[in-house]
């Protein structure tokens, strides 16, 4: 029941934020942040095994649903505050709340077709709202509208493809419609199971923008606020992969991934892992680093389809929730750096960490969380995922994959420790400063004067406050990377 209330609150406040956003920005953001906090409170009190039947289908709020709701809503509240500071059209909180509501329901529902349809419907807002805002904000870049169009098609298309393969799988002629289902392993049944798995992986590849289907995603990330990226890609993709993975594991079983399909899935995933990591390493602009790193994370999760082993699927749950939290923190960092210093290329960002120590500390936390330490859930999940797909050599490959964020995030860290460039020096100061606490033209008592001075102090300390927000997200990323999602 708590889950239903949570979804209703998230859906209602999300829609209100979107509809109010165009005319009344401050009110919309206030509603969005209040909604995020309410959802966080509900997620914290939600029991792990809350179950009910809705519309003839059972819904169970598992630990993964709870962990995802807590991590997503908490980071969303911080993103909302950052959105106030960053300015611009409100495109982050509303779509994210809708995505959160739908993801929670989809992960709890025991009917995969309902989950897939709901995820397709709920994921579109995360692309359309920021995409249209990005297009409206840049009238000299008409190509952003076709990019939004393609993004919409990718989100809806992946959901429809997933829905189609689930329907075909359970049809009388499908691999699961027979009396024997996964038990009878004649060549035709084996072929059907493998084909169903490959089509589901194709839907996942479209949804997550794996290489070579990543072009629209890369263009999309160039045209929107970095704060809007996690809802569209990190969290939205995570929910989609989790539903697809659950269906593949429960309905198809491990036998579906036993032949050539297994190697095809490994090839698709490893292509994106390697090329995504390399692209993040060679790109100089931080939005591309963010985008390709999210793509690489999704590709690591896709490796779970190559084995469908229950332990590996559990690792994928930990990995998806933890990596989404880490990439939310990275997106917040990218947005704050861009707002504070104006630049988004490494050449323009020399000395950023020296100029804003709090932002530097936050980035250090993100770096550690992204790489992981041997005892952390994220590190173990990555090792399990790669080892499950490639037994024997998986552990070594996992270390190579872990080294990639060390390189592409390490480059940014090194730039931050370099000499402060004129562009950074001209930006907002990352250090807190006290204006004296006296509001201009006010002669009341000390307490009232202090209250009157708060807005001015907040404005004067915008940059350090934004850095504090990133620091909070960084701590959250470290906690999730350490504890996982109870997968």
């Amino acid at each position: 029941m708590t889950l239903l209330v949570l979804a209703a609150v998230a859906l209602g406040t999300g829609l209100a934020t979107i509809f109010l956003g165009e005319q009344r920005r401050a009110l919309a953001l206030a509603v969005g942040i209040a909604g995020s906090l309410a959802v966080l409170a509900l997620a914290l009190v939600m029991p792990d095994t809350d179950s009910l039947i809705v519309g003839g289908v059972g819904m169970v709020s598992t630990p993964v649903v709870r962990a995802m709701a807590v991590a997503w809503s908490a980071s969303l509240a911080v993103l909302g505050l950052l959105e106030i500071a960053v300015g611009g059209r409100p495109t982050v909180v509303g779509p994210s709340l809708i995505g959160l509501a739908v993801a929670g329901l989809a992960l709890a529902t025991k009917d995969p077709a309902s989950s897939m349809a709901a995820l397709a419907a709920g994921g579109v807002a995360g692309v359309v709202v920021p995409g249209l805002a990005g297009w409206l904000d840049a009238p000299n870049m008409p190509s952003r509208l076709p990019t939004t169009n393609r993004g919409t098609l990718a989100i809806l298309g992946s959901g429809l493809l997933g829905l189609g393969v689930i329907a075909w799988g359970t049809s009388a002629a499908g691999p699961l419609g027979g009396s024997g289902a996964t038990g009878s392993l004649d060549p035709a049944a084996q072929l059907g199971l493998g084909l169903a798995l490959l089509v589901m992986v194709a839907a996942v590849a479209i949804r997550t923008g794996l290489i070579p289907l990543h072009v629209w995603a890369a263009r999309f990330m160039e045209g929107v606020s970095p704060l809007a990226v996690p809802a569209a890609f990190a969290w939205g993709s995570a929910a989609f992969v989790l539903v697809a993975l659950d269906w593949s594991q429960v309905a198809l079983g491990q036998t579906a991934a036993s032949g050539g399909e297994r190697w095809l899935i490994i090839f698709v995933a490893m292509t994106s892992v390697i090329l995504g990591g390399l692209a993040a390493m060679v790109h100089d602009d931080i939005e591309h680093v963010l985008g390709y790193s999210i793509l690489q994370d999704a590709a690591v999760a896709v490796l779970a389809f190559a084995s469908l082993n229950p332990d590996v699927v559990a690792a994928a749950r930990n990995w998806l929730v933890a990596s989404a939290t880490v990439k939310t923190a990275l997106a917040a960092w990218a947005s704050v750096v861009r707002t504070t210093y104006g630049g988004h290329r490494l050449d323009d960002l020399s000395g950023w960490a020296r100029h804003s120590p709090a932002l530097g500390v936050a980035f250090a936390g993100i770096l550690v969380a992204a790489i992981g330490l041997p005892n952390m859930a994220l590190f173990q999940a990555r090792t399990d995922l790669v080892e499950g797909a490639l037994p024997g050599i998986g552990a070594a490959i996992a270390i190579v994959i872990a080294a990639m964020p060390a390189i592409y995030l390490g480059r940014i860290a090194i730039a931050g420790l370099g000499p402060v460039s004129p562009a950074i020096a001209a930006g907002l100061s990352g250090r807190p400063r006290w204006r004296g606490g006296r509001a201009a033209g006010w002669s009341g008592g000390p307490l009232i004067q202090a209250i009157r001075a708060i807005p001015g102090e907040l404005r004067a300390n915008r940059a350090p406050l934004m850095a504090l927000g990133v620091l909070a997200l960084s701590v959250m990323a470290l906690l999730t990377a350490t504890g996982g999602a109870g997968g």
Partner: protein
Amino acid sequence: MNLALVAIVLAVAAGAVLAVSTRDGAASAIGLAFALLGAALLSDPLPSPAVLGVRVVAALLVATMIRSAMRSAPRQPSPVGWPSEAFLATAGAIAGLGLAVGLASAAAAGGQSVGLPGIGEPGPAGPVETGGAAVTSMALITAAGTSLLVLGAAPLVHGRPGTRRAIGLVLVTQAVLLLRIGVAGPAVELEEIAREALLVVAGATGAALASAAAGSMLGRETEDELPDPDAAVEGRSSVVAR
């Protein structure tokens, strides 16, 4: 074979042909409404009143949103005309029937029944014979789905941004939802709600993108900033001005 279902399938296809081919915005919206309402009724037996209500409301909402977007968008009739679209829809429906019969044959080879029977048809307990698969209600739903799929795919994939693409998006979404029922049987109530939410979101998204595209075209024409004269001529010949 249920004659009422056959009539509904014909109405769905006719509405979809009208929606994608006419140059009149109101007629296009009416055609889309017919297609979507017909699709809502494509079920044997009919679903519960609550589910039927959700389906009908979603269909009307989508048609309203698309019509609303048409007010500001340029008209985009089918470049090949309604007869060609009608032939395409017929071909799609026949392919759907073939698909349904093929699935029935494949299932019959495994000794199972396919889908739910139509009125007056053998019950689900009896296996379908390979050589004599009847046209069941599921086969008709599959035919309607494939018909909408072929009609909607071209404007969705190759159409210029605007209402025609929005109609294509709605038709393809509805097609997949029909195919889902056609091959796997009726949905549970929760899935019905999710399906209709997906349809409404597809309509809303299509309408929003069509309105944005109309604004973009209007802005370009106002500022006379079309970079490529050939593209401008081609664009204006395919987008009929009001």
